[in-house]
């Protein structure tokens, strides 16, 4: 188990994230033309959507590590899965905040139940917040690792099922009032800017992940040493 404080991977990732995010913001503000309908405010798209996709990537990564844990019984995957969920919840909360700001600027309301992505993220946020409750209220050990992994796997299955449910509920309970059409005819400049922003956000998540993982490993090592001494 590596507990070295110096982590070159994290440094490279963090520097890359800083460069890419600065470049992405510069492109989003100075290069991309105003959107035809939404105008200037559409630029939050370059923050909101990459953050949302990064959250999905984190949840997917957590489930993959959980699957590895269940198939190999190697305990190091437990911390990796946990850290990925941790990052996913942070980026999920950011998605809710940026989506709420976008809803406010576009429609004048902070929350709209007809916005599928936001509702989905609210459900996922609740679901993965309970993951922490599960971990904190269970004694450390292989059983907690197994349960966390199973829960992370349930999460990635819940994402498409909930998405389908929200689409079904929309037709039933919430009439579709707003139509955003951001994905229509993405121009080349928009596509490039979006790509840079997405790469930057993913690199940021990666840097935070590596950093947090090192911290969590240190914590665990420290606890093991304390227990060995006691």
């Amino acid at each position, binding site marked *: 188990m590596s507990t070295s404080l110096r982590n070159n991977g994290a440094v490279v990732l963090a520097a890359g994230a800083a460069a890419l995010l600065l470049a992405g913001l510069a492109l989003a503000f100075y290069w991309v033309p105003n959107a035809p309908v939404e105008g200037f405010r559409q630029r939050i798209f370059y923050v909101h959507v990459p953050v949302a996709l990064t959250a999905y990537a984190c949840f997917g990564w957590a489930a993959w590590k959980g699957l590895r844990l269940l198939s190999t019984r190697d305990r190091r995957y437990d911390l990796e899965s946990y850290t990925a969920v941790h990052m996913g919840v942070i980026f999920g909360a950011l998605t809710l905040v940026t989506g709420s700001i976008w809803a406010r600027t576009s429609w004048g309301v902070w929350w709209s139940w007809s916005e599928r992505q936001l509702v989905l993220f609210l459900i996922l946020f609740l679901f993965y917040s309970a993951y922490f*409750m599960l971990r904190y*209220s*269970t004694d450390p050990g292989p059983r907690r690792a197994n349960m966390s992994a199973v829960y992370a796997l349930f999460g990635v299955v*819940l994402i498409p*099922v*909930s998405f389908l449910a929200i689409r079904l*509920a929309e037709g039933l*309970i919430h009439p579709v009032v707003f139509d955003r059409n951001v994905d229509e005819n993405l121009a080349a400049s928009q596509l490039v800017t979006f790509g840079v922003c997405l790469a930057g956000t993913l690199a940021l998540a990666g840097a935070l992940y590596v950093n947090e993982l090192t911290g969590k490993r240190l914590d665990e090592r420290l606890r093991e040493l304390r227990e060995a001494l006691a």
Partner: protein
Amino acid sequence: MTYLGDVAALARKDLLLELRSRDTVPAMVLFVVAALVVFNFSLPAGSGTLAAYGLLWVAIVFTALLGLMRAFLAEREQRILDGLVLTPADRSAIWAAKGLAVLAFLLLAELVALPAFALFFEPVGAELVAGVLLADLGLAAVGTLLAAMAAASRARELLLPLLFLPLVIPVVVGGVGASVAADPARYLGFLGLYDLVFAILSWASFEYVVTE
């Protein structure tokens, strides 16, 4: 013994235990009727018929939750789960048997709840009954796995609703759709899909929840 034999024996144990102690089912029945009475007073006049159907699904989910909270109580208090895990039976048989028992309790509670709903509020159609039956399968399948998780934690009763409610939001969507929509088939199909996906997932992963 065959797999089905194991499941039948374990489920029989749970049903027999309930038959002798009568701990869970009367509480669930009383709870769901009390909830319906509370709903009568929480619906302002003129809120329409659709709201009542929506609240019925709240009552069903919480009644299921009540049953699930007690699902592994005996196993935990008497420390039986370790013994069950040590038996030569497949671990998923424990999940299937417990799920069947939870399903039976839930069905018994709804045997009272649906006529009571028809009496107090709105008529109960065939689509609603089909929706309830399909939803019960999903609630029991997912709930049994989560109840086993919650039973292994220190928070127990506190933890189960937190794990359970976000996961069953799709069931509520499907159930409400089946009761009020003009085309209930889509929603019933969705409920069936949910049952299938999460039953397979729970069946496959239960072993990891009860073993180290």
